């Protein structure tokens, strides 16, 4: 980075680059800014005032209306989203790490075949799985339960792919050999030595899967009828469909949408460094 030969760029191309990037940044940030402004307004001001300017500050009233609606169902949806995404991504990361680690570090017959089956799995559209899964789950009676959404969510072929790539890069064979010589079992080596070396990679896998589950909509929509099991996405979708009849719901949809994206955005910005370390480790080494 620092040892480049300095090349004088014309003022024009510098300015053009900066202007283009600013325009794009506005495009990416405008809807989020609009949502923040709209979430602070009373319902009556939504249509009557300009969308990008603040008017009466009504955020706290909006929040109490939102969380008070239908016996606090929104809080329940938020909790459900956290349960599905945090637990699902945690379990998913662990099993992806075990599998990717074995595929990277152990030599056995059929290894490449298993890996190509997993790679094929990356290309399978998950929405194509949702309908047949629904039929299978109705036969076993777990449709309309937490498990119906949780169980399919833990499987991430992409996570295994990342785990294999990262493991090859981050865990040297010599360390495994010396741990074996010290008499440590494979699982002990994995949990006490390898996992530590894989930490940045695990954070990346966790983030990918967390976002995938948090954002998932089709699977819960197919699986769940009980409102109390909905994640935020499905709940807000249902509310949004009712705003034509119940126009007061509009403000709650807006405030709810803001609540649903703020925690993830914060986590993203905080973990940015981790996230990029993991990505870089995968592509450089």
């Amino acid at each position, binding site marked *: 980075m620092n040892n480049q030969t300095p090349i004088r760029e014309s003022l024009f*191309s510098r300015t053009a680059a900066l202007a283009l990037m600013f325009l794009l940044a506005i495009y990416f*940030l405008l*809807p989020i800014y609009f949502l923040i402004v709209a979430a602070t307004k009373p319902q009556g001001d939504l249509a009557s005032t300009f969308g990008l300017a603040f008017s009466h500050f009504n955020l706290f009233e909006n929040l109490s209306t939102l969380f008070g609606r239908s016996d606090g169902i929104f809080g329940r949806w938020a909790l459900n989203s956290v349960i599905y995404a945090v637990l699902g991504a945690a379990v998913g990361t662990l099993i992806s790490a075990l*599998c990717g680690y074995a595929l990277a570090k*152990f030599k056995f017959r059929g290894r490449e075949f298993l890996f190509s089956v997993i790679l094929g799995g990356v290309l399978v559209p998950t929405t194509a799985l949702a*309908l047949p899964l629904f039929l299978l789950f109705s036969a076993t009676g777990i449709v309309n339960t937490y498990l119906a959404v949780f169980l399919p969510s833990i499987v991430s072929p992409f996570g295994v792919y990342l785990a294999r790539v990262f493991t090859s890069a981050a865990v040297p064979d010599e360390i495994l050999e010396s741990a074996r*010589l010290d008499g440590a079992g494979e699982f002990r080596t994995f949990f006490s030595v390898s996992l530590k070396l894989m930490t940045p990679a695990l954070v990346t896998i966790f983030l990918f899967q967390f976002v995938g589950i948090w954002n998932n909509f089709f699977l819960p929509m197919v699986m769940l009828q009980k409102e109390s099991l909905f994640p935020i996405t499905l709940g807000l979708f249902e509310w*949004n469909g009712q705003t034509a009849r119940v126009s007061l719901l509009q403000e709650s949809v807006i405030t709810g949408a803001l609540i649903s994206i703020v925690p993830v955005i914060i986590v993203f910005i905080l973990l*940015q460094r981790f996230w990029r370390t993991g990505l870089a480790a995968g592509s450089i080494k």
Partner: protein
Amino acid sequence: MTDIATRATRVVPATGGRRRLNGGGPRMGVIVAFLTPFFLPFVLFYLVPIGYAIGQSFMVVRRTGGQYGTSYTTFGGFEQYAQVFQNGEFWASIGRIGLFGIVQVPVMLFIALTMALLLDTPLLKLKSFFRIAAFMPYAVPGVIAAIMWSFLYSPQLSPVVDVLKAVGLQPDFLGPGAVLWSAANVSTWLWTGYNMLIMYSALQAIPQELYEAAKLDGASNWSIAWRIKVPIIAPSIVLTTVFSIIGTLQLYAEPAVLRQISSNISSTFTPNMLAYAVASGNNYQQAAAISVVIAVITFVLSFGFMRLTSKKAGL
């Protein structure tokens, strides 16, 4: 390190006795224990449903003794598939998604590539701000993004519509001709930053020395970008294209949300919406056949694209 390594090569043959079955690694039982926690759910929730859908797609429901008889499910060969291919709604949804993909995917990837290349030059300041701004939409669920944009499309609430009207335009983002592109815009907004980051990390991995010679020859940043950087990160561009093709064929949430505010989106707007609508009508075998056809098209297109580009670029 070298000490450990030599020690390892010296001692391993001695312990090789119980490991020899698989060439020096741990025993097969241990390997299976590592693989099973992933493969068990993978088989149950990935492979079995695929097999089940394929099986169902070859079945038909028939009735004994006319309209009021009892129904039973039996093998029907390619009957369901024949119905899929004769279904005008199916072809209409494929046509929409094809048009969507041909325009949206190149536009999105071009913006992503441009941003990644600009972020990789010394030209730009505020890099981390731009990177975060572009990547932020990835943290927003598709449904929520579509809800946010639907407010920006709505004639009553949208500041964008207000501004355009003030300069004398009459935008109708939800009209019959425009609504497909309004959905495409939501996808572009959501995924540009993600694709940009994949390309950007590939760019970051290129050793700087590669540019030195070109720079000494007086090459501009522009020609370094298009002649050296883009060819090197071609595999990342192929990867993002394949992911985008898969995403396009799966399109559901964005049009489903826009459908709540626009009468110009039918319940069979995309192939996936059609499959869901058919399944909601309890015609599971037909829905399975539609799902299988979508999956096959996805596979053919993504593998086809990878083969095509790998031959061209000699990757």
